[in-house]
C-alpha cells in the first residue's frame, strides 16, 4: 500500500505564490482518475470486435492522462499565470501589431449561430456565414484598393504562398515562364521561404542607407525572368518606401507583379492603399491589423486580395453574392484551387468583420494615425538612450538600436529586452530586421496610451542607467519572472519534445 503518495497539487508554480515549476499533466496522472462526462445516449453497446476486425484494433491502450477535473483546472489556471499576454500589459513586439483585442469580437465568435455550424452544410442552410464572408471580402477590398479576395489562407505566410501561386498562374496563363522573385534584404523570413515553395528563386535586393529599397540595385536586378517582387510597405524597419511608384513602374515595365506583404497594413489604413501604390496582390494579417487575438502563436487569417487581372485565378470555391440577398459557393473561372481544408479560419474572419464594423472607415483611419503617432512619439522620447536606426519620421513602428550600449558597456539588445520584462513590459522584437545592428523594434500600436509609452520610456531609461552602473546585472536579467534565462543550446543539443522522450 501507499501511505505516502507521490505529492502533487501545490500552487507554488503560480507566481503569486512562488517560483517553482509546474508538473506536467502526465506527472499529475493517477491510474483510474477521470474527469469526462458524456451524454446518456441509449445506443446499443455493440462490442468493439463485433464492429471492427481484430487486425485494426490497437492491442495496447494509448495513454492520455488520468486527472480529475479539479486538477485539470488547477494545472491550466496555474500555467495561465505563468504566461504574459496583451491583457496583462504592453506587448510592443515590432511587426506583430499586438494591439488590444476587443472582447466583443470574442463574444461574436462564441455565438453558436456561428461556431456550431458545420462547414459542409449546404449554402442554403448557412446563408449567414456566406454573407459574413462576402461582406468581409468586400470591405477588405475597399480598404486595400483591390478587386476581389480569397479568405482561405490561415495566416500571413499561407497568404504569401497563395499570392505567389496566383503570380505563377497569371504568368503561365500568359504562356510566360519566369524564374525569379525579388525580395529586399529587410524582408521577413516568410517571404523568401514562400518564394521557394512557390517554385521561384529569390533575388535579394539591398537596402540603401535610408533603410529603403535601393532603386538602382532593384533596377539592375530586374529582367524579363522576374515574376515579381514582394514588398512590405511600410517596410520591416517601419519606414515608408517613398519611391514606391518608381518601384512599381520598374517592376511592371519588365512584366513583373508587385506583391504586398500586409503585415504592416495597420500603419496606412485610410491613408494610402496598396492598390493605389500599384500592387497587384496583397495579403493581410487579420490577427494583426484587425485585432483578432494571436492565441499564443495562432490562429490567424491571411486573406489575399488581388487586382482585376488576377481575380479569375483566386482559390475557390468562394462565397459569392448571387443576386437578391442570396449567397452561394462559386469557383473562379481559372481558380488555382483550394488552399485550405474548408473556408479558412472562419471564426477569425467573423471577428475581423465585427472589428471593422465597430470602427468603420473613420475609426480605421484613426487607428493608423494613432499607431503612427505613438511610434514617432516613442522614437523621439527614446532618442537619447536608444537612437533610431534611421532617424526620421517612421510609421507604426520604430527600429531602434542598442549598438551604443553594446560598444560602451557591452550590454546587448537582448539584455535590454530581457531587463524590460522585469520592468513589467514585454520585450520588443530583437535582432529583426537583420539589416540593423542590435535592432530593438518597438510597435506600440494605437491602443496604448501616452502614459503607458512614457512609463515604457522611463523603464528603458532605468535600464540604460543600469547598463552604466551594473552591466552584469542586465546580462542576468530577468530574475523576477517564473523562470530566468533558459538554456536554449541545451534544448537544441538534446531534443526533448515530449514527456516520453528519453532524458
Amino acid at each position, binding site marked *: 500500500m501507499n501511505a505516502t503518495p507521490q505529492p502533487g497539487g501545490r500552487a507554488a508554480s503560480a507566481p503569486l505564490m512562488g517560483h517553482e515549476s509546474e508538473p506536467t499533466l502526465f506527472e499529475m496522472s493517477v491510474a483510474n482518475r477521470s474527469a469526462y462526462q458524456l451524454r446518456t445516449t441509449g445506443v446499443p453497446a455493440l462490442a468493439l470486435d463485433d464492429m471492427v476486425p481484430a487486425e485494426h484494433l490497437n492491442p495496447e491502450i494509448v495513454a492520455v492522462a488520468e486527472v480529475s477535473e479539479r486538477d485539470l483546472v488547477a494545472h491550466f489556471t496555474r500555467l495561465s499565470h505563468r504566461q504574459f499576454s496583451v491583457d496583462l500589459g504592453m506587448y510592443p513586439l515590432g511587426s506583430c501589431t499586438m494591439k488590444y483585442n476587443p472582447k466583443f469580437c470574442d463574444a461574436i465568435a462564441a455565438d453558436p*449561430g456561428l461556431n456550431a455550424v458545420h462547414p459542409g452544410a*449546404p449554402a442554403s*442552410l448557412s446563408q449567414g456565414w456566406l454573407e459574413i464572408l462576402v461582406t468581409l471580402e468586400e470591405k477588405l477590398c*475597399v480598404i486595400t484598393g483591390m478587386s476581389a479576395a480569397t479568405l482561405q489562407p490561415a495566416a500571413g505566410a499561407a497568404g504569401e504562398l497563395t499570392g505567389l501561386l496566383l503570380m505563377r498562374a497569371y504568368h503561365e496563363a500568359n504562356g510566360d515562364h519566369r524564374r525569379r522573385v525579388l525580395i529586399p534584404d529587410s524582408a521577413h*523570413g516568410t517571404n523568401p521561404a514562400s518564394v521557394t515553395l512557390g517554385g521561384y528563386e529569390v533575388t535579394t535586393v539591398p537596402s540603401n542607407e535610408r533603410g529603403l529599397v535601393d532603386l538602382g540595385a532593384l533596377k539592375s536586378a530586374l529582367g524579363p525572368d522576374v515574376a515579381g517582387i514582394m514588398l512590405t510597405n511600410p517596410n520591416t524597419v517601419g519606414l515608408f518606401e517613398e519611391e514606391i511608384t518608381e518601384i512599381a513602374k520598374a517592376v511592371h515595365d519588365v512584366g513583373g507583379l508587385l506583391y504586398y506583404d500586409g503585415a504592416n497594413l495597420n500603419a496606412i489604413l485610410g491613408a494610402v492603399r496598396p492598390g493605389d501604390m500599384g500592387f497587384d496582390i496583397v495579403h493581410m494579417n487579420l490577427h494583426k491589423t484587425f485585432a483578432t487575438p494571436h492565441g499564443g502563436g495562432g490562429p490567424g487569417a491571411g486573406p489575399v486580395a488581388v487586382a482585376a487581372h488576377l481575380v479569375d485565378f483566386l482559390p475557390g470555391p468562394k462565397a459569392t453574392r448571387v443576386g437578391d440577398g442570396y449567397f452561394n459557393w462559386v469557383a473562379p473561372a481559372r481558380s488555382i484551387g483550394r488552399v485550405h481544408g474548408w473556408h479558412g479560419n472562419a471564426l477569425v474572419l467573423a471577428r475581423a468583420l465585427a472589428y471593422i464594423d465597430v470602427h468603420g472607415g473613420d475609426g480605421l483611419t484613426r487607428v493608423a494615425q494613432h499607431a503612427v503617432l505613438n511610434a514617432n512619439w516613442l522614437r523621439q522620447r527614446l532618442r537619447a538612450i536608444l537612437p533610431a536606426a534611421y532617424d526620421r519620421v517612421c510609421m507604426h513602428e520604430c527600429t531602434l538600436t542598442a549598438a551604443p550600449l553594446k560598444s560602451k558597456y557591452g550590454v546587448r539588445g537582448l539584455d535590454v529586452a530581457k531587463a524590460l520584462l522585469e520592468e513589467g513590459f514585454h520585450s520588443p522584437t530583437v535582432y529583426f530586421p537583420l539589416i540593423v545592428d542590435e535592432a530593438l523594434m518597438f510597435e506600440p500600436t494605437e491602443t496604448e496610451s501616452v502614459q503607458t509609452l512614457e512609463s515604457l520610456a522611463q523603464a528603458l531609461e532605468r535600464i540604460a542607467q543600469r547598463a552604466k552602473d551594473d552591466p552584469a546585472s542586465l546580462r542576468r536579467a530577468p530574475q523576477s519572472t517564473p523562470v530566468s534565462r533558459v538554456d536554449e543550446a541545451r534544448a537544441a543539443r538534446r531534443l526533448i519534445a515530449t514527456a516520453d*522522450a528519453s532524458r
Partner: protein
Amino acid sequence: MADYLPHTDEDVRSMLEFLGMESLDDLFAHIPQAVRLASGLDVADGLSEPDVAAIFAGYTGANKARATTMTCFAGGGAYDHEVPAVVKMLSNRSEFVTAYTPYQPEVAQGVLQAIFEYQTLVARLSGLPIPNASLYDAATALVEALNMAHGATGRQKMVISSGVHPHWREVARTFARGTGHEIVEVPLRDGVTDWASVDATNAAAVVAAYPNYLGVLEDLSVAKDLAIAHDALFVIGADPVAAGVLRTAGQWGADVFVGEGQAFGTPLSFGGPYLGLFACTQAQVRRLPGRIVGETVDSSDRRAFVTTLRAREQDIRREKATSNVCTNQTLMAVTAAIQLGWLGTYGLREVATRCAQGAHYLYQELLALGGVEALCTQPFFREFALRLTKPADQVIAAMAESNVLAGLAVSALSGGADPSVEGDVEHVLLVTVTERRTKDEIDHYVNVLREALTR
C-alpha cells in the same frame, strides 16, 4: 465615436507638439501625394458594439444548420463532439488567447508547457516520436508531409490514395503548382485503395487515409509494403479520435502522421480555425515543418520549455527553410491538450467506441430501409457512405426541414466525379455519428430519411 483608442484630443495635441507637428496628417507627409488616399476610406462609419451585435444577429439567424438546433450527422473531417464548459473556460483564459508566439520563454512558460503537453499527446496518439507545435489544418499538414517526403527523397512523385479527403487532395494539387510535385491519385475499388493500379516507381511518398474519408478501415500493410518497395515515405492521414481504439499510424509503420485535431475541443466553427496535427520519425526531425517546443532548464536549473531547433525555421533559414509557416494554430493545440486532459485515457476510448456504436446502429437501421444501399461492403469506424435512390443534396435539403443535417453529399466534397467513387457520385451520402448522438436522434434520422426518399 465607438472605438478602442485611448487618445484624447489633448493627448493628440500634446504628442504632436512634442514632435513639433501641427496635425496628424504631418505624420504621413512623406508619403507621395500621388498615392495618398484623398477621399478617405469608403467604409461605412463605425457603429457601437450593440449595434454591430444586432447586425450579426441577422447573420446567425440565417445559419439554419447550427448543430445546437439541427441534429448533426455530418462529418468528413469536422465533428460534433462534446466540449464541456470546463474546457471552454480554460481555453478562453485570456493569457492563452492574447499572447503572441512564445518568443520570450521567461514570460511564456504557460503556453510553452501547454504545447509541450500537446506534443506529447500527438506523439502518443500517432505512435511517432517527433510532433510539432501545430499546423493550420489537416489539409495543409498533408502538404507539409509531401514537402518533407520531397526533402527526404529528392523525388517529386506523390502517390495518394483517393481515400484521402477530397479537399486535402485538392489542397495538395494546389500547392504542387509551386513545388512541382506530381500528384498521383489512386482510385478506390469497393471502398478500398487499389494500389496495384498505379506505378509507384520514384515515389517520394505513399499516402493513405485511416479510416479513409468514406469511413472505411483499409488494411494499410499493402500501402506500407508499397512505400518500402520504392523506399518512399509512408504518410498516414488518420482520424485522431480513432486512435482511442484503432492501431496508430506508428503501428502501421508510418514515417509521417497528419490529422485533423478539431475533434479535440474545437467547435465546428464553419471549418476554422482548426488544428493540423503532425508527427514524424526521428529520422525526419531536421525536416520538421513549423515550430517545436523542447524541454530544458533555466539559469537556476529549474525545468523550462522553449521553442527549439529554430535553425530549420523561415526567420533563420529564409529561402532554405523546411516550411514557411510562422503563425500556426497554437490556441487550438492548447485547447486539444485541455480537452484530452479532460477526456483522459478512458474517456477518449469511450468516445471512440460510442462513435462506432452509434454509426453501426444507424447503419444497420438504414440498410433495412428501401431506397438505401451501402456504397461498399467494407468494415468502417464512425462514418459510412450510402447510395440513395435520390440525389444526396435533395435528401439533405428535405431532411433539414425536420431539423436533421443528414450528412454530406460526396459530390459536394469531391466537386463531381472522383476516383474514390465508382459510378454515379450524385446519389452518394456520407453519414457520420459521434458520441453525442442519442438513440432517439438516430431513430428520428431513420424515419426522416424514409420520408425524404418516399416523398
